[in-house]
């Protein structure tokens, strides 16, 4: 449904997107992951036809964006980054306007507006001016306008940023439901969001795709070691020495007051570590497996990339 080939975008002399290619198949939910300024928004703006690429080709809903942008846009629902809305309109009149603009059949507008208001839980606010709504409700209006014309492709640019946790959960649930029959590209810089909602992830940094894989394989992307953090009451030198002797431990480092133990992915020596500490007569204060955070993955992937160059 979405096909991007050798896409490059310069803003003046600044390179924002550097020769990226990817596909999103029909019915897939793909997470577009990257730090701020990685080129996520630029790519999405090109996919929705707001910006023209400097080079490369883009197909959305099987239309070439450079030739048939208008037809393609009919099949796209878009949630832009900052969710800009007309503050002088009520929710109802705005959704009415959006549905007309997106070519919804005249007779369907009224019922469809009520449907999306229902889906996005906006019933109580339907006649309130958008300018008077809180950020969370504005975000719901943004989602409502994106789905009002029942588009086959949804492009959501950081839809869960700046809203409260309950709404984040609601939005994710909605995305999952919508994703059953639609193609969704969702950008975020929160790793857990991707693992909850997406089938596949594309990681982008400094305008380049640095990794692309299914969620299940995400951790192994990081040619995987796993890390365990523990806090022990005992002589630092000796504790570290003892930890190194445990089977399956690759490396031990001490960052006061924590010991970081690294071991190969797929192995879990926590039980052995606990036994070893207790048997040596020291006190184990805490022991936890450290999740690879997005920052870690980036750091790892980007440094790997640099060293390989």
């Amino acid at each position, binding site marked *: 449904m979405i096909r991007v080939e050798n896409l490059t975008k310069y803003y003046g002399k600044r390179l924002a997107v550097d020769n990226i290619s990817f596909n999103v198949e029909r019915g897939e939910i793909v997470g577009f992951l990257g730090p701020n300024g990685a080129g996520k928004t630029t790519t999405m703006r090109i996919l929705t036809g707001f910006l023209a690429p400097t080079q490369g080709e883009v197909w959305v809903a099987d239309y070439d964006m450079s030739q048939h942008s208008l037809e393609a846009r009919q099949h796209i629902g878009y949630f832009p980054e900052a969710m*800009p809305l007309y503050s002088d309109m009520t929710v109802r009149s705005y959704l009415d306007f959006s549905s007309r*603009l997106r*070519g919804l059949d005249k007779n369907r507008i009224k019922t469809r507006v009520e449907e999306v208001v229902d889906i996005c839980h906006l019933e109580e606010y339907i006649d309130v001016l958008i300018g008077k709504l809180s950020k969370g409700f504005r975000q719901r209006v943004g989602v409502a306008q994106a789905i009002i014309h029942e588009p086959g492709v949804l492009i959501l640019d950081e839809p869960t940023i700046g809203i409260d946790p309950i709404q984040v959960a609601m939005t994710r649930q909605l995305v999952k439901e919508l994703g059953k029959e639609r193609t969704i590209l969702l950008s975020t810089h929160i790793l857990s969001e991707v693992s909850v909602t997406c089938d596949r992830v594309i990681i982008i940094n400094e305008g380049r795709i640095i990794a692309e894989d299914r969620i299940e394989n995400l951790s192994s992307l990081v040619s995987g070691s796993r890390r365990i953090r523990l806090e022990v009451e005992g002589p630092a030198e000796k504790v570290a020495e003892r930890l190194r002797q445990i089977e399956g431990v690759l490396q031990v480092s001490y960052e006061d007051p924590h010991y970081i133990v690294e071991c190969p992915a797929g192995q879990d020596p926590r039980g052995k570590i606990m036994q070893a500490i207790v048997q040596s007569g020291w006190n184990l204060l805490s022991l936890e497996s450290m999740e690879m955070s997005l920052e870690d993955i980036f750091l790892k992937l980007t440094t790997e990339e640099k060293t390989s160059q």
Partner: protein
Amino acid sequence: MRNITTIALREFKSYLASPMAYVVTGIFLVLTGFLFSISSATYFETSIRGFLGTGSLLLLLLASVLTMRLLAEERKMGTLELLLTAPVRGSEVIVGKFLGSLGILTAMLALTFYYPIILMWFGDPDWGPIATGYLGLFLLGSASLAVGLFASSLTSNQIVAAVVAGGILFALWFLGMAADLLPEALGEVIGYFSLSHYFPDLMRGVIDTRGIIYYLSITVLFLFLAIRSLENSRWS
């Protein structure tokens, strides 16, 4: 056509929801009403020339103010992004917004109809010059709105948009005066490009086709430039 109507109606309603249109209309009515009531033409000719002469200049100013937000605000607030990613042509956006502002201008001119009605009450005005005078104001107004819309497409700053629009409009208006200083042939040619060149005829009740074509051309030209400028933002 449907998209144009949708955009024009939204724009028109948006004017009514903000104080801008009321302030502009109010100022226009107060000032033109004042000039109409003190002008000798009102009493000696039972004509609306007192209103038309200054109303035309005032229109240049107010059109710049009326149109300044049309695109600059959308650019600044970011709402342009949703408008341009909807399945709508740039030309439909521009024409829709133009018609929305033209609607306000028409309403504003309609509110001045009581000037000729007063004349009719107290005397026997010649309706020819009144009709052509209104035609002139309408044509001049639509040209001014097109210039204003173009200026608004250039920037995300409304003040800059208004100043640029006013600059272009007054330059085009006073071009006719500069023409007097130039060698005759050259001056005459330049005079044809002035916004003020065709207005006196219309005020007198003379319909000059060249004048009508001129105002329409300015309107179309600047709408076209606005479309190009809007489409250009995709290539930033």
